[in-house]
């Protein structure tokens, strides 16, 4: 099966791939087939149909398409195992057929994809959906050549460079005498070669001039470093706090924890961007958001203001900020892949993200306990009183109070001091005899509190 052949990719609950440290997603192609066109095929290369292809700095991820989330597993081709990428051939045939991208993968003798394999197989990507095939190929090349996986030490599948094959060696050292030049095209010789080299020099000068003005790109590449720095600091803090728990005093611990909290929230190393995801943008964003929201949602007791999430999410993303509109769309897409949370709109128009497991009953019972305390029986409660008890923001607490009111649990008192909420006694009072007070019940205890001598 394909599981033996290609390494599997771990997915989050919402169906987003779990990335390796420092791995960044770069390009998305939807409706892609991955297969081997080698005939006869002695190698059981899987035929993966209509998948979502994600190119990262480290791997080529082949995920089940979002429209059929139950189709089996997600697999990856480590870029380290790719020994060659064939350039795109323009022909009459290619104008009518779906665009194809071919690359060569190294295999170990027992048929596993690996960087130091002795055998190889040519794999083909068939792009069936609408996607910028050329742009993908360019990015594919860039990432393959950038060899980002080597920065993190040997990635699984590529043990050392020496066994990697001559092609990759030529890629890292353009001056070497391989058949391929640095950009993957076949090296030209003779006068044509000299002319071409001249041309290339012109082009590269032009390019570096352009780059000089693209400050934003430079900033973006710095952003990764910043995230790495934050990660390092977090690691240090973690190791520090475990070793010195006894020695350090409480205050120091407090600031450390705070710092840690801040750093932990810089969590998203690979933000889904419009540039990389294209049409898939909102779907992928939606999944990423679902993964992200879990922690703040848990901390806030199952319900969070949408605005709070907007701030937290964008802070975690760092540079690739999203618009409120994108956030809203991402939230609305949760329905489609059965995320464990949903967007809820209160009657007042306030929007929140709520856990599906979160129940209003729990909140209502807390509110009920609060309003039946003697002090609340006498003077009612305000939104901020409820906020303190429920551990949520006052605006959120007010929404809870209003929904408790609409359930008939509470009723309001509007005065110059603003709105205060009381336990609803109207249901307790006997409609036939207004002076009658039952011995037990809320009305009786309300009278005891308010008419005590």
């Amino acid at each position: 099966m394909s599981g033996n052949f290609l390494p599997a990719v771990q997915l989050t609950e919402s169906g987003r791939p779990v990335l390796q440290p420092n791995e960044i997603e770069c390009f998305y192609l939807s409706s892609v087939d991955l297969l081997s066109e080698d005939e006869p095929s002695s190698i059981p290369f899987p035929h993966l149909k209509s998948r979502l292809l994600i190119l990262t700095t480290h791997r080529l991820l082949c995920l089940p398409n979002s429209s059929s989330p139950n189709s089996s597993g997600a697999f990856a081709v480590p870029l380290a195992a790719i020994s060659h990428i064939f350039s795109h051939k323009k022909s009459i045939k290619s104008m009518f057929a779906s665009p194809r991208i071919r690359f060569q993968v190294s295999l170990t003798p027992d048929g596993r994809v690996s960087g130091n394999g002795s055998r190889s197989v040519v794999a083909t990507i068939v792009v069936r959906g609408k996607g910028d095939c050329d742009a993908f190929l360019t990015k594919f090349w860039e990432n393959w050549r950038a060899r980002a996986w080597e920065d993190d030490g040997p990635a699984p599948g590529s043990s050392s460079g020496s066994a990697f094959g001559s092609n990759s060696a030529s890629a890292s050292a353009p001056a070497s005498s391989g058949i391929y030049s640095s950009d993957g095209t076949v090296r030209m010789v003779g006068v044509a070669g000299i002319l071409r080299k001249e041309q290339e020099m012109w082009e590269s000068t032009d390019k570096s001039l352009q780059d000089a003005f693209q400050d934003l790109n430079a900033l973006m590449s710095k952003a990764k470093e910043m995230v790495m720095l934050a990660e390092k600091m977090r690691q240090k803090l973690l190791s520090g706090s475990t070793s010195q728990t006894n020695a350090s005093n409480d205050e120091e611990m407090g600031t450390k924890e705070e710092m840690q909290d801040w750093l932990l929230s810089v969590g998203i190393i690979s933000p889904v961007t419009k540039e990389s995801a294209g049409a898939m943008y909102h779907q992928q964003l939606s999944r990423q958001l679902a993964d992200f929201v879990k922690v703040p949602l848990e901390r806030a007791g199952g319900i969070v203001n949408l605005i709070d999430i907007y701030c937290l999410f964008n802070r975690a993303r760092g540079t690739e900020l999203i618009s409120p509109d994108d956030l809203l769309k991402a939230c609305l897409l949760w329905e489609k892949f059965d995320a464990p949370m949903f967007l809820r709109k209160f009657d007042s128009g306030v929007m929140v993200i709520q856990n599906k497991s979160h129940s209003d009953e729990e909140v209502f019972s807390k509110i009920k306990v609060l309003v039946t305390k003697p002090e609340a029986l006498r003077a009612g409660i305000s939104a901020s009183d409820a906020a303190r008890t429920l551990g949520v923001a006052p605006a959120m607490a007010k929404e809870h109070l209003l929904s408790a009111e609409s359930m008939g649990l509470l009723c309001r008192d509007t005065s110059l001091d603003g709105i205060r909420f009381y336990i609803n006694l109207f249901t307790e009072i006997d409609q036939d005899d207004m002076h009658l007070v039952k011995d037990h019940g809320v009305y009786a205890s309300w009278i005891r509190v308010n008419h005590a001598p």
Partner: protein
Amino acid sequence: MQKLGEFKLPHFFNYPPYFTLQPVRDTREKQIQLWKDLILDYCKTQKVFVIGLEEEFPLFSNPVIERSLTHEARETFLAALVVEGRAEWMDKNHRKCLILWHRIQEWAEILVQFARDNGLEDGVVTIEEIRFGTESQGTDLQGIDRTILNRALKILEQKGKLVVFKGTSTDDEGVKFSL
């Protein structure tokens, strides 16, 4: 127990939400019911026939908890009485409300009973005597509002049970029963 003159107020008169018109329908319906009962009860015992919305009315504010009804709330509660036939607006702008703690039909029956009790089946009595005479003392008819009385008399007149005759002035108006 709080009192308003001789009138015994219910406990919930000190419940602040009682003075805020509740926005939730179910709660508001119960609140309106309590207000209707309290207004009728108060008017009956205190012999109040007319409530002016823009005038001071003892029930509509509670100095103890510093709450009073808004104009909207007053109108809502009285309108609920009007719907039930226990009150009538006296003007288009809903500034004054006639409280019918007995419906007009009931008032007519009370008048007939009054005539029987005092042996007036074929007798004559003035309006003034009905309202302030010794015979009506201690009955609901004592101090009855002129508008309500006239309406009740008209019902009986249409049934042929009495004839209203006018004198030289309004004070001289009289009734001849023919039961």
